[in-house]
């Protein structure tokens, strides 16, 4: 039910402007490939494992192969043709064998032509199709499990983070969290993984303030949650991070291991990790195509803007980013019900009427994106170490989430910015959520902000400012807007940042069977679940 009386024409203008702002960037994304997209393609084609003999530590085979192909014949035609041509030429059975031969210096990659090209293309398509079938099977399996075990009985879904650095400890914590009421478990990654240009291999036990995202860690955690899902009688979802320099590869691994949600923002890496903008937009598009195919809910990162910029002054940049994220996601084939657009409760509690302003912003997001499973994120910036005050603030955050119909609620910890949460901190945090849900779960039914009151006016104002900013972005170009520090105060020029050397302009004969299969994927229409 619409409470803000937003002008449909203004909303339509906002979406139209977002589409126009995104258009040149989408064109750039289509015209380029990256080392990470090529590696993701080979991962879909079945390559696994790492070269453990290298003196610098394990190097994933896929990095070995893609780097060598690039050295021998460039990546502008894609990695699929040279790789599958070499596979046949050397009469090898698997990509891993090819990788071993590559490391031994026995393979000379070249671009096949004529009948060789047709044959390599066919072989590559067959291999990638197999990977995509696995992704499809995982999606079907999730649907079956949800049908059998059920979704959480309430909205918002309760989203809880575990992060020990050791996947085995994470499993213990995740199981306990699910038993205590968590519907979604997110395993935070090790600090700095986003800047690694490879995905580590195997089960890992030594992360820095988080656990490495690896295919094996994904498998271990999903299996553990499948067990506990049966025990608690609802399907417990698993979240990780498709961000950083390996965004497309991690998206593929998520699809292969049936992860359910992935953090995947269109601009976060650019702004907060200083990753090259073109690299990010190319990687993002491919990763979102994978997520669409896998039925994975993406979580966008608008909360981050508010941790650097002021949450009142910069409220409209959140709306702008949500609209851009929505457009990029739709363009990549993600339907509304897979769009976990983010926003956060980050207004300084000392600002007069801060709670009403929070309600205005939260309600605006809700009404702009009625079918998206919005992700509502707790206060971090104004958590001071006074855990008692923090507990109160988290209570208000929970209330705002319930009152404005948010879909996924990231549980706030009173120990934010103090220590990693104790067992008891998490228990108290969940008690806070349960109390608010129990006491006020249906309050939105009675909640009617006055038509000319502060909440409604503020929402209109933020939307107006968002439209103005989008118009400026259309005029300046999105890449220039990012370079000028429009979002989160960070200035990021299009030719700067990490991973820029991994971007390659596609040549005319570029071939990527994964992109072809994903582009032509049947787009679904009917949402499977109610967002609210």
């Amino acid at each position: 039910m619409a409470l803000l009386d937003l002008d449909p024409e203004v909303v339509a203008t906002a979406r139209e402007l977002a589409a126009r702002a995104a258009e040149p960037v989408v064109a750039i994304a289509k015209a380029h490939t990256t080392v990470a997209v090529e590696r993701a393609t080979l991962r879909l084609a079945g390559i696994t494992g790492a070269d453990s003999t290298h003196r610098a530590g394990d190097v994933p085979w896929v990095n070995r192969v893609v780097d060598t192909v690039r050295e021998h014949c460039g990546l502008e035609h894609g990695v699929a043709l040279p790789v599958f041509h070499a596979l046949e030429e050397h009469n090898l059975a698997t990509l891993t064998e090819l990788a071993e031969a590559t490391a031994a210096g026995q393979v000379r990659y070249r671009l096949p032509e004529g009948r060789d090209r047709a044959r390599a293309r066919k072989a590559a398509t067959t291999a990638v199709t197999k990977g995509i079938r696995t992704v499809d099977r995982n999606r079907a399996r999730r649907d079956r499990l949800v049908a059998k075990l059920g979704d959480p009985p309430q909205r918002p879904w309760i989203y809880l983070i575990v992060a020990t650095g050791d996947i085995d400890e994470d499993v213990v914590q995740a199981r306990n969290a699910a038993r205590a009421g968590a519907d979604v478990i997110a395993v935070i990654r090790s600090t700095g993984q986003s800047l690694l240009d490879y995905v580590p291999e195997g089960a890992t036990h030594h992360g820095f303030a988080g656990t490495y995202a690896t295919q094996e860690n994904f498998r271990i955690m999903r299996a553990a949650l499948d067990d506990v899902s049966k025990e608690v009688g609802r399907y417990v979802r698993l979240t990780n991070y498709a961000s950083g320099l390996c965004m497309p590869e991690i998206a593929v691994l998520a699809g292969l291991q049936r992860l359910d949600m992935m953090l995947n923002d269109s601009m976060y890496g650019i702004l907060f990790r200083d990753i090259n903008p073109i690299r990010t937009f190319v990687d993002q598009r491919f990763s979102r195509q994978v997520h669409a195919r896998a039925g994975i809910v993406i979580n966008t990162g608008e909360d981050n803007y508010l941790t650097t910029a002021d949450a009142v002054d910069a409220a409209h940049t959140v709306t702008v980013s949500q609209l851009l994220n929505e457009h990029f996601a739709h363009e990549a084939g993600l339907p509304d019900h897979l769009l976990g657009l983010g926003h956060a409760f980050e207004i300084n509690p000392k600002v007069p009427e801060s709670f009403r302003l929070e309600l205005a912003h939260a309600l605006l997001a809700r009404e702009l994106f009625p079918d998206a499973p919005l992700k509502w994120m707790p206060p971090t910036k104004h958590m001071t170490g006074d855990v008692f005050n923090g507990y109160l603030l988290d209570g208000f955050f929970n209330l705002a989430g319930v009152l404005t119909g948010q879909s996924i609620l990231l549980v706030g910890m009173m120990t934010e910015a103090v220590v990693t949460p104790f067992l008891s901190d998490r228990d108290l945090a969940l008690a806070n959520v349960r109390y608010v849900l129990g006491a006020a779960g249906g309050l939105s039914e009675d909640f009617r902000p006055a038509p000319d009151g502060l909440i409604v006016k503020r929402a209109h104002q933020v939307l107006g400012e968002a439209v103005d900013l989008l118009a400026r972005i259309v005029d300046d170009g999105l890449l220039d807007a990012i370079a000028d520090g429009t979002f989160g105060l960070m200035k990021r020029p299009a030719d700067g940042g990490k991973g820029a050397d991994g971007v390659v302009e596609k040549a005319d004969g570029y071939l990527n069977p994964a992109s072809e299969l994903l582009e032509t994927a049947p787009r679904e229409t009917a949402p499977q679940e109610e967002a609210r």
Partner: protein
Amino acid sequence: MKRHVRPYGDTTGDGMVQTSFTLPVPAGPHADGAARQLANKMGIDPAMVVHSHPIGDDFTFFVVYGSVRHIVDLDDVRVVEREYPLLSPAEVNTTLKKLLRRKLVVVGGCIGTDAHTVGIDAILNIKGFAGEKGLEYYRELKVVNLGAQVSVPELVRRARAEKADAVLVSQVVTQRDAHIHNTREMSAAFREAMGERRPLLIAGGPRFDPLMAGELGVDRVFGRSTTPGEVASYLVHAVQTRKEESA
């Protein structure tokens, strides 16, 4: 101020404190007894377990109130005095603006074969560490992050080209004392190339001892769990001191 004090609940000298903790014991009278015993050993006597509840099957959470018998002797309080105050990002920005009337330039990277940028990124990236934003967030700091495996000559070259006020190097790998050798090599190179006009040299990493600065030839060493705010506050302090000395 009196020399000897006790915690204040609602009456002078009552010694009242409140604490909470979890024991790996199933909930019940036995668990409450265990909590009382721990509180007694902590010096809380009498201890009142005012609340307990189970967390799962194997743990119990307690809230305890009670009077501690300990007495604080204020004359015995020794605090490690940081020689500089911790500043907020806004304070860092305004002080630097006044001091330099330009941005302070920070060049950072991991030197040698060290590819672990975790440390330098935690300090420099806007994402930051421990709830604090990294140095990139500070308006009056210009940050150049050279990333991993920067050679010492390259670091010196970039520091000169950028007219760096400060150079931050991070060292995580410590095999065969690589972090010590690398840092010494770095400081020697700066001394040789630039003499007195060298930038501030700062080394950081989990295995560094902050007392080693002189030995390593750098101005400051930061150890484990240093936050960006501490580094920024130090930069302000060091620039201020240098300016005063040259004035």
